[in-house]
Structure formats: structure tokens, C-alpha cells
């Protein structure tokens, strides 16, 4: 399953262009979509789910063109977990999944089998009799993920699934996505850099409706290599000067002084700056602020 986006633009009625002439090819496996809030990630995902029609450009899902006539065929192949979703609070976990399975057109016996499988896989089997309103944020996200997978979609779209979750839940959701990506294409949108570092090899960085980078994680890191330095100083005015001159990806007060990670085109002339290893966060800051 591959998805191809050609010269896609989405302009809203108020004149705001959320996605601006973008091209992208999403291959099999997990593909990360990274960008700040308001970058256009959710709009792009809404187009890919057929919820929103693009202003111009085209999208192809395994060669099938996104258009009114093909929407039903495409929708069957898509599983979607939106950024915020409040699944039927008065139903139990099992009832909720049975209900959504029925709406997805899955035969009852098959639906039961799949629900059992996914509840086990997402460690929700012990909570299946709990009402949706009684679940924690992480559990609700996991149920959301199961509902998106129930009809065995070829293309799974997840929009910021780890936002607001504790570290343990975030890791759990990430690992589940990796497992589920074995047999399908997963588009994983987030603004949490660590989530992508832990899950995918390919990603796109989005800002103001455009892609600043598309490719592998390694290439992105290479782009920033030689542009990241670390500096430790006790002089507060020097620290302020460095903050003004460079992009700072981290700042810490340590016993030795103020430790800064600097990003810039050229090596800082200030003494005590040393080149250091690049993290995805550094690379992201470098690419988005170049």
C-alpha cells in the first residue's frame, strides 16, 4: 500500500492556506509527520481520510484517485484515530467496539474475534466491561486505536495519539503502532520528536503548510551534523548573547554553569564551544529555522 500526494493545496473559505502545494510519497510501514501546532498536519490528514476535499492537487491510494466516486472504496481501506475523540461514554469498552464494528460493516462473529484479539494485544481485556467514561486518557486512546483497526485497514492514520499521556502510556501506544505497522502503512502525526525517533525511519517535517524535509531519519540527522554545538559558561551575559545569536535546542543550569546546545550555520566564535552529536530534536529545530 502506498500513498501519493501531488501538488496538494487546501485553502479555507477565510483565505488561510493550510496545505500549500505539497508533494509526498508515503511508503509501507510507519511514516512520521512532524511539525509544530498549526503546521497543517491535521488538515493534510483530514484530506487523506476523505473528510476534507482539497482545493487543488491529487491524492492516490494504491493508484486509486481521491474523488467523490472513489470515496467509498477508499474509506474501506482507511482507519483513522483523530487527535481528540470521545467514544460513547455510556457504553462499555466491548459494547463500544462492537457498535463501531457493526457500523464498519464487520460480520458479528468476525467482529467478536477481532475485538478479542485487539483487546488482548492492547492490554485492555481486563477493562472491557468498564464504561468508556471510566477509562484513563491512555486507555481511551488505546480503544480509539482498536476502533481504527477493527476493519483491518491497509492505511492507518493516527493524529497525535500520544498527546497528554504519561511516559508509560506513550511508550505503549508507540509500540502498538510499530506492531500494527508490520502489515500496513501507518501515518503517524505528532509534534513530539521522541515519538518519531522511537518508531519510524521515514518522516516529513511540515511548517506553515509546506514540507521542509521529506526523507529518512538518518538523512535528517546528517543535515544538522556539523551545525550543533555545546557550550558551558558561567557568564550570564555571554549565555544571553549566544541565545540571541543562535537557535537553542536546550538550556540547563548545572554546577559548571549554564549549558547550552546551539544550532547555527557556522561554528560559534565564542570560546568553549564544542561540536556534539545530533539528536532528532536538534535536526528538527535546525531544519525548521534554517
Amino acid at each position, binding site marked *: 500500500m502506498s500513498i501519493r500526494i501531488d501538488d496538494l493545496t487546501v485553502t479555507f473559505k477565510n483565505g488561510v492556506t493550510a496545505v500549500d502545494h505539497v508533494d509526498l510519497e508515503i511508503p509501507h510501514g510507519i511514516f512520521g509527520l512532524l511539525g509544530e501546532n498549526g503546521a497543517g498536519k491535521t488538515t493534510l490528514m483530514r484530506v487523506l481520510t476523505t473528510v476534507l476535499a482539497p482545493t487543488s492537487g491529487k491524492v492516490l491510494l494504491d493508484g486509486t484517485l481521491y474523488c467523490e466516486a472513489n470515496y467509498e472504496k477508499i474509506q474501506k481501506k482507511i482507519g*483513522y484515530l483523530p487527535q481528540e475523540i470521545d467514544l*460513547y461514554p455510556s457504553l462499555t469498552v466491548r459494547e463500544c467496539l462492537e457498535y463501531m464494528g*457493526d457500523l464498519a460493516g464487520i460480520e458479528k462473529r468476525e467482529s467478536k474475534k477481532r475485538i478479542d484479539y485487539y483487546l488482548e494485544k492492547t492490554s485492555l481485556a481486563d477493562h472491557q466491561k468498564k464504561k468508556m467514561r471510566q477509562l484513563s486518557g491512555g486507555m481511551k486512546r488505546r480503544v480509539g486505536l482498536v476502533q481504527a483497526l477493527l476493519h483491518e485497514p491497509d492505511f492507518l492514520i493516527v493524529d497525535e495519539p500520544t498527546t497528554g499521556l504519561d511516559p508509560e502510556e506513550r511508550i505503549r501506544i508507540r509500540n502498538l503502532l510499530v506492531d500494527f505497522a508490520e502489515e500496513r502503512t501507518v501515518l503517524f502525526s505528532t509534534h513530539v520528536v521522541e515519538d518519531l525517533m522511537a518508531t519510524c525511519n521515514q518522516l516529513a517535517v511540515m511548517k506553515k503548510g509546506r514540507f521542509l524535509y521529506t526523507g529518512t531519519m538518518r538523512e535528517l540527522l546528517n543535515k544538522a551534523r556539523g551545525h550543533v554545538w555545546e557550550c558551558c559558561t558561567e557568564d550570564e551575559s555571554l549565555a544571553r548573547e549566544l541565545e540571541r545569536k543562535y537557535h537553542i535546542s536546550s538550556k540547563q543550569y548545572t554546577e559548571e554553569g549554564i549549558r547550552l546546545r546551539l544550532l547555527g550555520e557556522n561554528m560559534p566564535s565564542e570560546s568553549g564551544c564544542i561540536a556534539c552529536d545530533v539528536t532528532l530534536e536538534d535536526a528538527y529545530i535546525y531544519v525548521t529555522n534554517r
Partner: protein
Amino acid sequence: MKKEVKICMPYYKIAYSIAFVVILSAIQPVVYAKEIGGAVERAVSLLAVVFCADTYLVEVQSKRSEVFCLYNLKKQAGVVYKRLFVQVAYLIGISLLAYGLFYWQKPVNLTEELDGGALFGIYCIAIPGTVLFWSVLSVTVSNLVRNRWIGMGVVLLFWFFSISGKATQFLKNWGPFSYGTCDFGKLTEWRWLGGKVLCVVFAGMMLAFVPKILKKRG
């Protein structure tokens, strides 16, 4: 169907609907038994407008609509029909309860010919048409404007017009409140039936448009 009941009939809806008819029967005086039908009809239609406005929009409010719209259109419309069926059935039940509560005030029967049981029988024929019409109208308008409050507001404007003297004069026995505005001097009074038949026909037409509205505005 059990799951639809759980989804579209939360406790707060049951509580406010029962409270509404209990308070109404307590504060609205009825002297004659033939006045009960009209009093309940107007109130229950109002309740139906508020009760059913979020039948589909509950999916939008809970941010489920983007997942919901990925399902087959027939399934989506089926959900709206099932929820409407559950709510209309409940509202008819509430209307019967309201009639009972009014009757408890021991109103006077005007003539020997107009006994309470027969009046209640006529009411049982008329009220499903009223409930169905106002429920479906509320769902249709709210879905069209994609906002339950604006939807309710628009339908309430029409409700106010319908109960006005001008509308009664203009529509005569063909309005949505043809039963309530009819003076039951005799049990042979059936002119209101035309209005109720029209209510059912219009409700049917609006129901037929549900899939189209969901496709365009869902």
C-alpha cells in the same frame, strides 16, 4: 438497539423530560377534559424539538463525526433512524404520562357523549403524529445547520408561528397543531386528522433526506 438506547437516552435527558411534564401538569390548570390534549400536544412538541436536536450532532460534539463519516452512508442513516425511533417512542410514552398527570387533576367532562376514555383514545391517535413531526423537523434542521442550538432556535421560531392565532386561522385543520386547536364538542370531530396526516407525510419526506443531509453536512 440496546446500544442506541444507551447512546441517545442519557440519564439527564430522561430526568429533564420527566421533570418537564410533571412541572407542566402542576402549573398549567385544566378545567375540562377536552382541553388536556391541546395542552399536552403543544408542550410535548416543544420537548421533542429540544430532545431530538442532538440525535446525530452528538457525534459532532464528541468529535466522533470524522470517524463516523468513514462508514457506509446507509449505516450512518440507519443510526439516525434507530435513534429517532427510540426517542420518538420514549416521547410518546412521556406524552401518555403527561395526559395521565393532567387527568389526575380531575377535569370536568362536558357532556355524557364526551367520556374521558374516548378523548384519551383520540389523543393516542393524534400525539404520535405530533411527536414524529417535531422530532424529525428538529433533527433535520439541526443537521442542516450543523448546530443543535441554531437548529433548535429555527424550529422554535416555527413552533411559535404554529401556535399563533394567525397560523391557526390560516392553516385551519391542516397545521401541525390541528388536534390541539380543535374544539371537541363531539367525538365525531375528526377534521384535525388532515393536519396529522400532513405531519406524518412531511416527517417521512424529511426522513428520506437524512442520507443526503449526512453526505453533504455530516
